[in-house]
């Protein structure tokens, strides 16, 4: 929510130290945060831009990403009610899951937020990050940058230095939020959006949070660079969904990291459908005994999209469980990269960890799926397994379906929906599931094999 005209330096392309300072003073930030941004800026400047020679970027070419071309900050009009939001955003809200709290970040600023009385009465806080800095500074100061620090990588450094907007969710001890909480990041200018999501779920609390990214159609490249920090207390439950459905001009970078309390459960779902290039790091820290992390992923790449997921199941404490399933479909000339690591630290005995990545190639020889599952086990009493498959749709399977009168395009659709069903059937959110089904159907279009009509 803007109070005053943004300084000139925020309206010119590229990010400099001046931009970072201007953001801090424009936002009237406390000294520690201003200092943190500068520290992050120095980290960003010191870190080289990743290239194909870096192990973690071997298959994802970002040499075209020119951060200096993007506007660092774009204001947005405030909305008094949901009815004032852009029509496209209203449509997203309507088609989405029912929610008990809602926040819309329009470009670099929060345009609208709402928390149902029933939820706020229980002490739940859901607001933009700058409001949280004023009203809950202690919690924010303790947790922000704790899981995605500025030295995590080049993009995390930039996000720490130049973030704007962002959201803060706090669920007090023992509070069960039944209806999901939702945020939308909406971009309709050629520029950049750098939100930070901070979620703190206290002991014994329970909540579902859906973070969705979408934009208006545009030609010139835009830049999205986020960081998500999820703190889940003892015995608490968090279901976190990241749904990336940018238009094709957007380059998307995001790092999602979680910290799990004793006997807590975190279910994450990371969906990548849109953008030109998408790189998401998803790291679950099994940081306390008995913690449990389910990590689901769904991606569907078409045309010349590049969708890249790097995951880590970081078993630090004993008796923890993690189960990862990432499934992706590829058509046309797209590229999908999955690189997953299960790391079991020396003290993490009785770890139970699974990792599966499956790719389905749809009627093309030009798509490229990279699947790199890895284990690094430093304890001796553990159960771990990993697996990975990449294959074409089986023509015998299609023949079987078609032999029952089902036309080819319909049969292909059944196979693809069946393939993703293993992931979507594990999500207890009806509205979200329907949204995903529609998106998958749209991606399949009129069938994926090029045929002469």
């Amino acid at each position, binding site marked *: 929510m803007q109070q005053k005209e943004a300084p000139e330096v925020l309206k010119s392309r590229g990010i400099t130290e001046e931009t970072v300072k201007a953001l801090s003073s424009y936002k009237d930030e406390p000294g520690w945060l201003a200092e943190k941004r500068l520290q992050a800026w120095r980290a960003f400047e010191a870190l080289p831009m990743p290239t194909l020679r870096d192990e973690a970027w071997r298959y994802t070419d970002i040499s075209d990403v020119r951060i200096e071309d993007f506007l660092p900050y774009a204001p947005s009009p405030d909305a008094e009610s949901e009815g004032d939001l852009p029509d496209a955003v209203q449509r997203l809200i309507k088609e989405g899951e029912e929610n008990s709290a809602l926040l819309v970040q329009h470009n670099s600023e929060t345009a609208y937020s709402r928390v149902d009385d029933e939820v706020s009465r229980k002490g739940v806080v859901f607001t933009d990050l700058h409001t949280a800095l004023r009203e809950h500074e202690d919690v924010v100061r303790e947790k922000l940058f704790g899981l995605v620090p500025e030295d995590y990588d080049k993009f995390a450094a930039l996000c720490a230095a130049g973030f704007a907007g962002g959201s803060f969710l706090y669920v007090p001890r023992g509070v069960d939020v039944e209806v999901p909480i939702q945020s939308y990041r909406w971009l309709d200018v050629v520029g950049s959006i750098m939100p930070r999501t901070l979620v703190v779920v206290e002991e014994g609390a329970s909540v579902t949070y859906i973070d969705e990214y979408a934009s208006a159609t545009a030609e010139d490249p835009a830049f999205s660079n986020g960081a998500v920090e999820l703190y889940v207390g003892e015995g608490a439950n968090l279901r976190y969904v990241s749904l990336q459905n940018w238009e094709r001009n957007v380059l998307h970078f995001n790092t999602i990291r979680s910290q799990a309390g004793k006997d807590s459960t975190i279910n994450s779902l990371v969906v990548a459908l849109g953008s030109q290039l998408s790189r998401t790091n998803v790291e679950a820290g099994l940081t306390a005994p008995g913690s449990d992390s389910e990590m689901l992923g769904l991606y569907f790449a078409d045309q010349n999209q590049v969708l890249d997921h790097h995951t880590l199941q970081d078993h630090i404490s004993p008796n923890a469980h993690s189960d990862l399933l990432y499934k992706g479909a590829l058509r046309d000339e797209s590229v999908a990269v999955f690189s997953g690591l299960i790391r079991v630290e020396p003290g993490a005995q009785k770890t139970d960890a699974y990792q599966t990545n499956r790719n389905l190639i749809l009627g093309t020889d030009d798509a490229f799926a990279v699947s790199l599952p890895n284990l690094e086990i430093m304890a001796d009493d553990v159960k771990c397994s990993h697996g990975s498959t990449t294959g074409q749709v089986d023509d015998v399977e299609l023949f079987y379906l078609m032999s029952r*009168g089902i036309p*080819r395009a319909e049969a292909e659709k*059944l196979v693809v929906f069946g393939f993703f069903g293993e992931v979507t059937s594990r999500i207890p959110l009806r509205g979200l599931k329907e949204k995903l089904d529609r998106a998958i159907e749209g991606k399949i279009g009129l069938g994926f094999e090029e045929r002469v009509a």
Partner: protein
Amino acid sequence: MLKIDNLHVEIEGGEILKGLGLEVGKGEIHAIMGPNGSGKSTLSNVLMGHPRYDVTDGTIEFMGEDVMELEADERARLGMFLAFQYPSEVPGVSVANFLRTAVNSVREKELAPMEMYRLIQEKMKIMQMDPKFAERYLNEGFSGGEKKRNEILQMLMLEPKLAIMDETDSGLDIDALQVVSKGVNELRGPEFSAVIITHYQRILRYIEPDHVHVMLDGRIVTSGGKDLALQLEDKGYDWVRQEFGSAAQS
């Protein structure tokens, strides 16, 4: 109903069917018996339009129409059905969803959801299947017997004019065989024809054929009534080879 003439089929360059001919009339049940490797399964797959086989010569007509250029779904919509020997597993697609999609694909008008539900329940009862079966993923983790029952269930739902049954009896115990046969007999009538492809005559005790053909080395070498099946049971396939082996080579 079905007319096959001089059918030659290759897979990966090897010829499997070498000039096979067969005519099946309306309302008739034909059994095709033969030893392993005689080309029985190739015949059933080719009739349905399997993509991995090459038809090099001959014709297949169904209800007076040349089906050779038709895709499997088009053949199915004409009224052809194949009960597979090894049905594919399709993870993530439930039996109910599959049946709904299939039935609505062959019908001119879509069936209302309630009617569809009732129809599925009714046919599952005939096949002595647990109603929960409809929610399982298609053939995934099914036992051999469950897969075969599921094939016949699909046949009952689609009500084809011609059913080709590729070794539906293999691997079934006597109870399952009776249930499967009951399913086939359910459809039996003047408008329904079937080609039962089998190694053993056991299934023919439950589904009585009008005609029996013996297949050897890619051709039908002899045909007769149901007695031929009994004769075959007595004398074994070695007798067929001795009697007709030279004919098959010529």
